């Protein structure tokens, strides 16, 4: 922690942008990453590994299309398995991007300006990874479009009373709105890149993508209105998406799923894992590209606080689940609790408690909240913990339902793992490319943070 921050309040008031920057230098510094700085060997190695993992994903999916879902570990009674675990995990990670870009915008948290762009990109890529799983999990993925209500010769329509249909609408709306929000934010920055680049073909590409943005006061006015309204729309949307995902479980009657605590605790868990992913990306990016002046200790500290708060909500969710298992008097609920603590997956449940509840409590220590390395590892632990949470919800409940004649065990196969790790590769590959072709930090919003941007009437 640098000397100048003597107490917690000093850090609170610390500027969200380092001293000595002007409109010009902010612009140059961020656009240089895209326009002038050459790709390093480290970038090629990182992208290469991520790209190979993406190829592994395609291989695993190709084999899946040939053989069918039998190559996975899903078998009755475990019909959902890795596909749904990973879907929920990825969708949850996406939530932090929208939270940062929309909710913090409405709350006038100006520190968001330097992390919203890549957090939104993270959202898009995470939703893309998430979308793969339900689509290939339907069994005949080439018919996945049957999920949408389109006029067809079979003269049937989807069942709108099913939460799975709600999910189709929630996730596709979320993907669309996130993409629009990301793109509308990019338009002025694409105009900046158009004006900065020396290469003609880049000028044309960025010029077309920026729609010929010229920064007219009238345009800015409508732009800001649209941006604010979009933020206002995205705020209930992001809360609804994981709520609807939790309905996939909560509307069912399986013990351990059928509970009203699911929507709030799923949303909190989503933001929890999302901020962990934001930190895992932001910490290396700020280090490698020298952006410590833009993504400051205050950003890390604030993100850590959000994780701490949402983590406590998640802990409350676990507590209520356990309490209701006992208090409801329902023997199946009580057994679910007993099974989590003593059943065949007990070790995973204890790991979950350690990763999501106990280890993140070290974030109460300010020294760790401001230490990038510590935060990086704690974020990793939280991401693992949130994945375990979905594993516990899906696998533990399905392996032990009402009749012990239908009990079973869930063993993921190598294809399950290849698909999951493959999506991690795809996510990282997309992030690597994003960093090289688009401004990873919103340039025009960073300009508004400078003191010169203030205008007196």
């Amino acid at each position, binding site marked *: 922690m640098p000397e100048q921050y003597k107490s917690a309040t000093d850090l609170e008031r610390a500027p969200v942008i380092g001293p000595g920057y002007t409109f010009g230098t902010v612009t140059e510094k961020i656009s240089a990453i895209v326009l002038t700085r050459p790709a390093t060997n480290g970038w090629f190695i990182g992208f290469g590994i991520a790209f190979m993992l993406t190829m592994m994903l395609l291989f695993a999916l190709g084999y899946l299309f040939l053989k069918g879902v039998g190559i996975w570990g899903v078998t009755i009674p475990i019909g959902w398995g890795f596909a749904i675990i990973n879907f929920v995990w990825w969708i949850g990670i996406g939530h932090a991007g929208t939270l940062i870009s929309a909710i913090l915008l409405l709350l006038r948290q100006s520190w968001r300006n330097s992390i919203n762009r890549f957090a939104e990109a993270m959202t898009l890529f995470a939703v893309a990874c998430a979308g793969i799983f339900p689509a290939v999990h339907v069994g005949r993925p080439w018919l996945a479009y049957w999920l949408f209500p389109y006029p067809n010769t079979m003269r049937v329509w989807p069942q709108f009373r099913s939460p799975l*249909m709600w999910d189709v609408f929630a996730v596709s709306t979320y993907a669309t*709105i996130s993409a*629009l929000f990301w793109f509308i934010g990019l338009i002025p920055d694409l*105009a900046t890149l158009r004006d*900065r680049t020396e290469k003609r073909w880049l000028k044309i590409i960025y010029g077309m993508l920026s*729609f*010929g943005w010229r920064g007219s006061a009238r345009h800015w006015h409508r732009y800001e209105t649209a941006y604010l309204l979009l933020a206002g729309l995205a705020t209930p949307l992001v809360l609804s998406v994981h709520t609807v995902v939790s309905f996939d479980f909560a509307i069912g009657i399986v013990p351990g799923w059928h509970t009203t605590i699911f929507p709030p605790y799923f949303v909190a868990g989503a933001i929890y894992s999302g901020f962990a992913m934001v930190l895992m990306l932001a910490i290396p990016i700020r280090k490698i590209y020298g952006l410590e002046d833009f993504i400051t200790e205050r950003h890390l500290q604030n993100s850590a606080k959000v994780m701490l708060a949402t983590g406590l909500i998640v802990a409350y969710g676990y507590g209520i689940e356990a309490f209701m298992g006992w208090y409801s008097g329902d023997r199946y609920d009580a057994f679910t609790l007993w099974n989590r603590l003593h059943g065949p997956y007990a070790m995973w449940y204890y790991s979950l408690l350690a990763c999501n509840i106990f280890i993140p409590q070290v974030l109460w220590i300010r020294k760790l909240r401001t230490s990038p390395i510590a935060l990086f590892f704690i974020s990793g632990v939280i991401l693992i913990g949130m994945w375990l949470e979905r594993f516990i919800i899906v696998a533990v409940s399905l392996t032990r339902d009402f009749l012990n004649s239908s009990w079973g065990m869930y063993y993921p196969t190598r294809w399950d793992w290849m698909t999951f790790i493959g999506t991690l590769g795809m996510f990282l590959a997309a992030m690597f490319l994003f960093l090289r072709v688009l401004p990873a930090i919103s340039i025009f919003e960073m300009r508004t943070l400078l003191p010169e*941007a203030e205008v007196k009437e």
Partner: protein
Amino acid sequence: MKRDPIYGIMAEFDSAQALVDAAKKTHEAGYQKIDAYSPFPIEGLAEEIGFHRDEVPLVVLIGGLIGGCSGYLMQWWMSAVDYPLNIGGKPTHSWPAFIVITFEMTILFAGISAVFGMLALNGLPMPYHPVFNVPRFSSASKDRFFLIVFSSDKKYHALETRRFLEGLAPKSVSEVPS
């Protein structure tokens, strides 16, 4: 109508404050058809140049209403009229189950209207525009601020307007060819 070879006269400023002050003076001097360009949104600048009607919220409202109504009607028609399925005697028109998709469709349509409505009202995409003819204008997306008086303005006069803009202490003044 004969097209004026000059699109307008443009003055360059180096701070947001200077631009707002200049825009205010220009508008007060009676110029109506003016515009200001800045690398980031400046609060109150649009009002200074006489922009008061922002239709984006109306577009978003209409979009949201269309989305919500069509979302609900779609589910009602598909589930209760065209393809009614009797499942355990439950009502086919079960409105509580339709709320989620109605909500999502409202957001979807409102969001799409916000983005495309904003672009359409701004007349974008427009990759070419006369102001780009001014070489120094490329800084408008970086750290410079510009004010233009269009030649279509009633009060526009090639010499007097130029003199007026020069009186606002700009960094430079240039003619914009159309």
